[in-house]
């Protein structure tokens, strides 16, 4: 069945591409929130109204109007198992909110999974575009194009003074949330990260850990996004994020260089220890695996480790999440079992690489 594709492959096709600055920026994302004028927002819509919204929006997607952008598949969430929904969340293709709480929820996925259009999440329509590496402007251009296509057919809730109307007042106006996912191990190791992140929050941007709001940054992955959606144009918002992210990239590069020139042996030791543990450990919890994988990724980026590709590390980040793990081994597991299976999976993935690499 075609719709099972997303749950078999850990890495969306778009993630396999290499973007600019991809040794620091894992991915760039732009999300646009829109609502239909004549329906209550999803929170207050009746089941009947939610279904109507879903039908209207999926009909636009299936009318062929999206063809210039790519091939799309519509997935109705109520037709998926709980595990399949969780996998979609772990791949960042839908939000936990859409997976768990939505009525009339659906997602329209592009073939390479770089575009995911969520229906009846917090807002009627959420268009999300993901690009590998540092391509936040490209992501906005595509999201904007898709927005235009929907706007031709749907009656958006728009107000002259407030802009695009959204369920949450934090999204009103442009309805745009742009973000970059950055791997910043050197800034963490050199203890510059707090200073930099607190500066970032002072220019209207927000910082989060990789999964969810306010969670500790696991594996040195930080998501930086715009806070303000009203009173600035879309290009101002994108440019602001772009400019700040660019500066962080430069700081991270400088910190990596300094680590290499001042404490190369210590870094190499740390990287190789983590690589060794990942290659041989029998039990691995998600927190440790995130940290060790971060070390190994840094090692790859600095040329300290051969035979490991950053693509396989990206893959492991997704594959070691609880939902995906259970999907892979096709069983429901306790936390202990998961830690055991996780270690097994990482071992296999890393060993496979060494063998292919001919070591």
């Amino acid at each position, binding site marked *: 069945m075609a719709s099972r594709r997303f749950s078999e492959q850990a890495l969306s096709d778009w993630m396999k591409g290499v973007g600019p600055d991809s040794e620091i920026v894992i991915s760039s994302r732009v999300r646009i929130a829109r609502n239909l004028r004549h329906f209550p927002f999803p929170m207050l819509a009746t089941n009947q109204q939610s279904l109507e919204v879903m039908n209207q929006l999926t009909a636009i997607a299936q009318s062929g109007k999206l063809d210039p952008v790519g091939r799309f598949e519509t997935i109705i969430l109520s037709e998926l198992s709980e595990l399949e929904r969780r996998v979609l969340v772990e791949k960042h293709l839908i939000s936990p909110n859409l997976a768990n709480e939505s009525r009339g929820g659906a997602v329209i996925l592009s073939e390479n999974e770089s575009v995911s259009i969520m229906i009846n999440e917090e807002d009627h329509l959420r268009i999300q575009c993901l690009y590998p590496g540092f391509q936040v402007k490209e992501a906005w251009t595509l999201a*904007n194009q898709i927005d235009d296509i929907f706007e031709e057919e749907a009656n958006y809730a728009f107000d002259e003074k*407030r802009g695009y109307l959204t369920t949450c007042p934090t999204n*009103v106006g442009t309805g745009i949330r742009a973000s970059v996912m950055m791997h910043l191990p050197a800034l963490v190791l050199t203890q510059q990260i707090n200073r930099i992140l607190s500066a970032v929050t002072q220019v209207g941007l927000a910082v989060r850990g990789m999964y969810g709001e306010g969670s500790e940054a696991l594996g040195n992955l930080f998501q930086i996004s715009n806070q303000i959606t009203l009173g600035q144009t879309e290009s101002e918002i994108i440019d602001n994020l772009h400019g700040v992210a660019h500066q962080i990239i430069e700081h991270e590069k400088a910190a990596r260089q300094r680590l290499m020139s001042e404490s190369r042996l210590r870094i190499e030791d740390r990287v190789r220890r983590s690589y060794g543990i990942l290659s041989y450990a029998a039990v691995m919890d998600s927190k440790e695996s995130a940290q060790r994988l971060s070390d190994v990724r840094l090692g790859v980026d600095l040329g300290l480790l051969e035979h490991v590709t950053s693509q396989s590390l990206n893959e492991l980040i997704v594959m070691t999440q609880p939902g995906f793990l259970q999907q892979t081994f096709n069983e429901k597991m306790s936390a202990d079992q998961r830690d055991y299976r996780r270690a097994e999976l990482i071992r296999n993935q890393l060993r496979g690489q060494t063998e292919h690499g001919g070591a």
Partner: protein
Amino acid sequence: MICQECGKKPATLHFTKIVNGEKTEFHICESCARERGEGIPGAPNGFSIHSLLSGLLDFDPSSTTGANSAKQQEMIRCEHCGLTYTQFSKIGRFGCSNCYRQFSDRLDPLLKRVHGNSVHVGKIPKRSGGQIQYKREIEQLRRDLQSRIEQEEFESAAHIRDRIRELERKIVDL
């Protein structure tokens, strides 16, 4: 690690809460976490942006004008979806697009706090927004017209005036 709450199941949720600089670490199992409804990302009833927002919404801009008018405003109810302002300020979410018009008086201070602004300047929908685009263009042309007149460039001022009339006709036709 064993759940620090029930002491039975393995702890699968580890998080750090910082309140007023005081750091507390939690290691609990999923069922205890669900019971407590602690701020776990993705978990239902968790602490969310909305509960944070409602803190902002408690801020009462009309307190200077007396408690009476504040009370009246609490009673405002959206005609379309039935959401009251009090409900909105508790959950931090609007019920429908009409709420924005209904609660409009109270929104400026809130939006300024969240965004530093209360007026949209970005993208406009092409189809339904044609009128707005014309209005923005007319505003711009009126400013041009004024400066042309001040500089006594009457010929180009006349052109601009014609263009404004043309746009105004278009708005009527829409």
